[in-house]
């Protein structure tokens, strides 16, 4: 029986398994719940621009939206990182892409806060 020692550990820039698998599913379910909730709300309000703006004026909707956006970012991070790990073999280039992915997602988060709190 052999186990990977510290020396043989392969640098992939990620953890090794179950946590990410679980994160991907929990965040997916949260986003599905948000989608259904938003659809129900959309049906229940009058179909006017004013009603749509009023809906997103509520703090509870902003908070629920932002929490779901956090889930989206985490979900996207795991997914995109998997893509880099599958196709980009040079370690330096791969880790650079990981960092750029994080920067892209962080920028999106700041923009999302700006959009949500503009109403």
């Amino acid at each position, binding site marked *: 029986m052999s186990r990977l020692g510290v020396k043989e550990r392969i640098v992939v820039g990620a953890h090794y398994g179950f946590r990410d698998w679980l994160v991907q599913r929990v965040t997916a379910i949260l986003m*599905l719940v948000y989608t259904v909730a938003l659809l129900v709300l959309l049906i229940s309000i009058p179909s006017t*621009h004013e009603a749509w703006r009023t809906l997103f004026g509520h703090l509870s909707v902003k908070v629920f939206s932002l929490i779901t956006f956090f889930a989206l970012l985490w979900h996207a991070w795991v997914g995109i990182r998997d893509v880099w790990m599958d196709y980009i073999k040079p370690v330096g280039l791969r880790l650079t892409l990981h960092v750029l992915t994080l920067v892209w997602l962080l920028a999106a988060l700041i*923009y999302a806060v700006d959009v949500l709190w503009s109403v």
Partner: protein
Amino acid sequence: MGNKMHKKVRPKHLDLTKIRIPVPGQVSFFHRVSGVLMFILLPFALYLLKLSLSSPTVFASAHTFFTHPLIKLMSLALMWAFLHHACAGIRFLLLDVHKGIDLKTARASAYAVFGVSIVLTLILGSLVLL
């Protein structure tokens, strides 16, 4: 053992023009494609939300934004990516809990993912963009 003369000649690379991936595999492939597409279109999606939440005067002039063919294409791509990713995702979640795991059902649900997401994209696209 170790007779090199009988060693099979195996392809050294995968010939993508010859590989026929089964439909469940194609769902999986496009799940990845749609995910990457949404990752790229993330700022665009947020901009659409911003536009929808803008003041009545700005909102009134927003429809000119959607007359541009590239914007229509990006919106349609975003709709399809979301719908395919969501449908395929629901299918994967069900497979995780061993629902519809036999070959016949799994194949049928794979076809359903493609069908439902394309039809919904066309309906939503024609409602919003035409």
